[in-house]
């Protein structure tokens, strides 16, 4: 019903209005109090599409302050298109400092990776989560999965993993590998490779998870037990590569495979671009 066209529209600090931030903040406090439990929240439409990190963006918007130094990564890299877009969004609506250095960041928003550089106390990591419900592929109904969590009834997941073992000889889940948080809630670590799961356990940093489209958020406080599901005779293992990173020579980082010519030649490089650069510089 307005006739003006808002050509000089001024957005609030971090885009969200203060009421929305308070709603998110109250939900975050409950999430921290109940580690791994999915708190429903009144997710808003953000200027990036659902599925492209709106949950993470809303969490970041509700916690970010002028003194923060923000790092945004997608697939471990700071300069993938979506990471660039999200970082520019926050630079535009908050004017906070941004960085690609894991060590220099106070706040790290990520899609699909945890940096190789160990997180430190006081840092907050925000994960973008497409599907917060670890049981969703096994049970489509939210009413039913809520009941399963209420009763800590996770047999479905154990059966699924056991069937993998019976069929393949090992658990055939390579990313978004389910974890038990604080020995109570089965949780999705977001689609990080299982290579990153051990970094969740007793992390010194606060880990926050936001699913905008599904309107759920959850948290893993620092120094919290996080166990990847496994069986006694089939312990949890992570990915290993025969190759070292072709750029920095690292043997202990998660590697991306890159096809380099039409004949299918390939090379392996660190997915964490900041880590790779640190390694290259320390050798130079």
């Amino acid at each position, binding site marked *: *019903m307005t006739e003006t*066209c808002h050509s000089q529209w001024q957005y609030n600090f971090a*885009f969200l209005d203060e009421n929305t931030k308070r709603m998110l903040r109250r939900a975050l406090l409950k999430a921290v109090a109940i580690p791994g439990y999915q708190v429903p929240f009144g997710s808003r439409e953000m200027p990036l599409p659902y599925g492209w990190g709106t949950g993470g963006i809303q969490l970041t918007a509700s916690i970010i302050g002028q003194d923060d130094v923000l790092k945004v990564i997608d*697939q471990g890299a700071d*300069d*993938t*298109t979506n990471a660039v877009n999200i970082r520019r969004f926050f630079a535009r609506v908050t004017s906070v400092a941004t960085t690609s250095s894991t060590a220099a960041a106070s706040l790290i928003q990520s899609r699909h990776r945890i940096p190789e550089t160990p997180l430190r106390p006081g840092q907050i990591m925000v994960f973008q989560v497409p599907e917060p419900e670890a049981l969703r592929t096994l049970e489509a109904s939210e009413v039913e999965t809520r009941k399963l969590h209420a009763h800590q009834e996770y047999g479905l997941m154990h059966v699924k993993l056991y069937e993998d073992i019976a069929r393949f000889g090992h658990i055939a889940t*390579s*990313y978004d590998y389910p974890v038990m948080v604080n020995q109570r809630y089965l949780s999705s670590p977001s689609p990080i490779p299982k290579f990153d799961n051990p970094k969740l356990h007793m992390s010194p940093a606060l880990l926050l998870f936001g699913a905008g489209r599904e309107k759920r958020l959850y948290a893993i406080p620092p120094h919290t037990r996080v166990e990847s599901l496994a069986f006694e005779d089939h312990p949890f293992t992570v990915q290993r590569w025969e190759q070292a990173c072709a750029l920095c020579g690292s043997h202990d980082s998660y590697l991306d495979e890159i096809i380099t010519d039409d004949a299918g030649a390939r090379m392996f490089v660190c997915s964490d671009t900041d880590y790779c650069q640190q390694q290259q510089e320390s050798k130079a």
Partner: protein
Amino acid sequence: MYVAVKGGETAIARSWDLLAAARRGDSALAELSLGQIRQQLRLAVARVMQEGSLYDEELAALALKQAAGDTVEAVFLLRAFRTTLPRFASSKPLDTAAMRVRRRVSGTFKDVPGGQILGPTADYTQRLLDFSLGDNSDVPPCALADSGVPQPLPSVLEVLAAEGLIEAEQPLPGDPEPADLTRQPLMFPADRATRLQNLARADEGWLLGLAYSTQRGYAESHPFAGEIRMGEVSVSVCPEELGFDIDIGEITLTECQMINQFAGSKTAPPQFTRGYGLSFGEAERKAMAMALVDRSLRAEELGEAAHAPAQQQEFVLYHSDNVEASGFVQHLKLPHYVDFQAELSLIRTLRAQATSSAVQEANHD
């Protein structure tokens, strides 16, 4: 040769330039004004306002222009803007009985109190391309004053209600404040007010397909279009500091009341039941589809078997929002290098295992 992934920022800036150029098209042609879009693409504007949950024709026209006519993208733009708007007040419930009706039709009786009012509709046109519109056409003047429509226009369903043949529509005990899906997450089981809110914001195509499925045997609905009315309705608010209602303007609405056969249950006699649809602007297809889906979602409440997709709350309501659906379907365009690498390693391992066990079996034979 391996090309470093650096350079994302520059590539993104170039893609913006290309997008802007493609939106504008040939600059030798006149640029669309928002006024033109509002006036000449009014149904697109209405759909963007409806699914964008924001009644603002100017902003909806801007969204359509910016989205180059992509309705779902325009809805998304409007919703994202809506997020930033502070909330000053809640309006009083709209009174559609007091609508200044421009169109009202019913499929149930040949004549109804107040008459069938056709209004501006394409229903009775022959869908032949009108080549005269290809040139700048002058529309012959049209007598707009429709002084014959009584106001308020009696509702068709009141006739049935007076005989007790259709279920009464009563507020819930205590008339609780409905949930606000723009501020609260959808929770299950969802009550009817919440479901209607979700359906009102739902993608028209999704509702249309579901509604159609209920007519083709996936739910037993037996619907009749009891009444469809379109026109202008006043919006009023009652600011706490004033303590009385003030009129803040009027909006165009389309309302559909479907009538459905109901054989009765243990607690209710055989009677007609209702399905309800309401939409901003002139949007009959949307309002009718919404009314059909509203009725099918009442299956459980009315003691009907609920095995069709259109009767299942979680299925219908969780997948109705085109901003959510569009985002998530299209997020597959984003890089998934890390997860794909993990799957690649896994598939290679599984293949190696399958090959070696096949070799072992062959050796045993």
